[in-house]
């Protein structure tokens, strides 16, 4: 499979772009932002109609049997459109856990779009590496039971299936929870990506994958999530640069378009250099996820950090180039700016990813 974008991928992308332009304009994003769940089930079903959720699911499990290479292109478009909703949680986090656990029960539901899924692992008040610290699961006489709390759960309110990484003695295990527990919305700085806190008190659950294999499954999931998040950020960054350039061409100051000033020009040029690099890395990581998984832990890690830097810079410069108007709620620049920062921080900031990369390179 080539790294080059295929005609088929281009067409899929264009279809998704048209769909989102029609069904998820930024006015609609703003309506959803005002809700706890930021979830439009009809749009989700529409994406399922286009086959998005099943793209990277093997045909044997009801998917289309394509790969993350295809998905990355779709996700770039979703990032450009600021699509709210559980795509990253479902496809980026939950799907790779299910694939790596060789779980057949839930894959068809995910592939068809019937199942919205997420993964929960963070301890309330903990850092990005606090996996399972506040969650324990045990096999009791009454079956598997989960207790404890998870914070900062992506789309935790709307997930039909929550995969929880919980402690089992010294190791951790992933368990599936379909109901039970308390779910509380955590109002998010980036309102387009809703968060939740989940509290479990002796809630029935089912192990996914091998008992004690939780850390590995989570690591795998984070690599895939990092890859897709990188793609999403690249899409968002491109959208920001397009906005900034478009505005710089028409906005006049001192008798000329501000895009004529080198300060603006060079900002835009530097953003492009960063975005091109991040795009190359994100697409390569998606290619590796399909074709050379051994490389993924390294390339996903660096792709996430690169995309985070490119997106944040592009989003921040977009605010700056717009001047005062770019600082208003009414203007869309801040939606991207907040998404950019939240995405940069998600799963660990740039420094944390650099350290992870050094570890994975065996330095």
């Amino acid at each position, binding site marked *: 499979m080539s790294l080059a974008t295929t005609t088929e991928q281009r067409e899929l992308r264009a279809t998704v772009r048209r769909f989102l332009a029609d069904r998820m304009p930024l006015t609609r994003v703003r309506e959803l932002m005002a809700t706890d769940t930021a979830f439009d089930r009809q749009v989700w079903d529409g994406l399922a109609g286009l086959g998005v959720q099943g793209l990277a699911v093997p045909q044997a499990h009801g998917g289309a049997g394509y790969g993350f290479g295809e998905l990355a292109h779709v996700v770039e478009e979703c990032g450009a459109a600021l699509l709210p909703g559980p795509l990253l949680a479902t496809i980026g986090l939950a799907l790779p856990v299910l694939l790596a656990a060789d779980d057949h029960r839930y894959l068809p539901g995910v592939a068809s779009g019937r199942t919205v899924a997420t993964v929960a692992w963070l301890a309330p008040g903990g850092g990005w590496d606090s996996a399972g610290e506040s969650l324990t699961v045990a096999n009791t006489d009454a079956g598997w039971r989960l207790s404890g709390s998870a914070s*900062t759960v992506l789309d935790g309110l709307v997930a039909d299936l929550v995969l929880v990484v919980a402690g089992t003695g010294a190791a951790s295990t992933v368990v599936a929870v379909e109901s039970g527990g308390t779910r509380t919305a955590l*109002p998010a*700085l*980036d309102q387009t990506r809703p968060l939740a806190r989940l509290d479990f008190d002796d809630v029935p659950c089912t192990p996914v994958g091998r008992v004690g294999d939780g850390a590995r499954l989570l690591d795998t999931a984070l690599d895939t999530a990092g890859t897709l998040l990188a793609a999403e950020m690249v899409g968002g960054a491109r959208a920001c640069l397009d906005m900034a350039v478009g505005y710089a061409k028409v906005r006049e100051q001192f008798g000329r378009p501000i895009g004529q000033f080198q300060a603006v020009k060079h900002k835009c040029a530097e953003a492009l250099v960063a975005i091109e690099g991040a795009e190359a890395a994100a697409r390569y990581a998606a290619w590796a996820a399909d074709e050379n998984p051994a490389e993924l832990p390294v390339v996903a890690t660096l792709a996430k950090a690169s995309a985070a830097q490119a997106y944040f810079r592009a989003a921040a410069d977009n605010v*700056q180039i717009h001047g*005062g108007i770019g*600082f*208003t*709620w009414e203007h869309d620049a801040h939606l991207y700016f907040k998404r950019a920062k939240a995405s940069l*921080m998600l799963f660990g900031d740039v420094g944390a990813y650099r350290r992870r990369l050094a570890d994975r390179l065996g330095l």
Partner: protein
Amino acid sequence: MTPSPIEYTAAQREFRAEVRDWLAANAPAEVRGLRVPRGPSDLDERLAAWAATLAEAGYLCVAWPTEYGGRGLTGVEVSIMNEEFGRADVPRLTRGMGESLVGPAIIAHGTDEQKRRFLPPIISGEHDYCQGFSEPDAGSDLASLRTTGVVDGDDLVLTGQKVWTSGFWKANMIFVLCRTNPDAPKHHGISYVLLPLERDGRPNGVEFRPITRITGKALFAETFLTGARAPLDNVIGGLDNGWRVAMTTLGSERGGSATTQHVAFLRQFWQLVDEVRARGLIGDVRVREQLAWAYTQVETIRMAGLALVADLAGGGTGRGLGNGSTSKIRWSEYQRRLTEIAMDLLGPDALVVGDGYDLDHWQEEFLVTRSHTIWGGTAEVQRNIVAERVLGLPKDPAPGGTR
């Protein structure tokens, strides 16, 4: 006692003692520790009472000449006053733009009658000004403003749109730049007008539409002027002469907050250290380096301020010791980067806000700092100013006229 890097004159030391004594005797307990909020708040009444106390004692508009009700303080004395208010932990209130912009413009360009009519109400608080300079299409290029002022009998009739009007919710006056001569070159034909928001108890054609900022708060407004009328007597500096009036600043303002600006930054720095410590991250080499970087920036701001005031106190001019633009670039970029770092350090918690998009300190500052490189001349304009006015590099050729 820690040695002071500033050698004050006897008069300055005396002034410090005077302020300190006055504060000890007059600052009510209820204002101690108060931080002035950015917007309307339940502290407003207490702060208003404190402002009235200050006005009566002559601690407002202190840089104005005494003949106009001010105290004629130099920049060094203002810095002393700021320090003493800080030491007493009471808010150092001002009359806002009325004090910093309108008063000086009137003092420099107004008639005697205008001085009598407009200066005392600023000090007393009777006139509360908001700003009507910026326009949506003008931006950094202020002089390209389009709001018109047409003479009609004894009145000037204003029509147009202004933007970024702060403090609109409490103002009863607005100072406006408008174009009174459309045929004159860009910087001529502009007038500076003091416009009351009501006349004879009736609305005067000024409508505010609050602008919500990216923090979710609406502290600024778009201002629509629809046949708003001001007496010609309210035009400062004469018709068509408003640009010069608008460019008025106090000559003696250097010093001022130079020795106290770092105080809030230092408090904020230690707050971050505490939060980082509480999360068990203080031993991390990279965190330590970032904190050391931050401390360096705060100290640099402090030291630059001390150097300036030391020079002024010694009778110097402060030349070569920074100016508004380099100082703005320094603190605005520091605050921006600091809050980016703080968000990263605080991790998952920093992604969660309060109900009703209620932001904590770091979240709010992370967002607000994006505006610091826009308002009052963008970061790009500030760099141009530094390059052209301080370093003497040649001006950009501006086809649309001078800047």
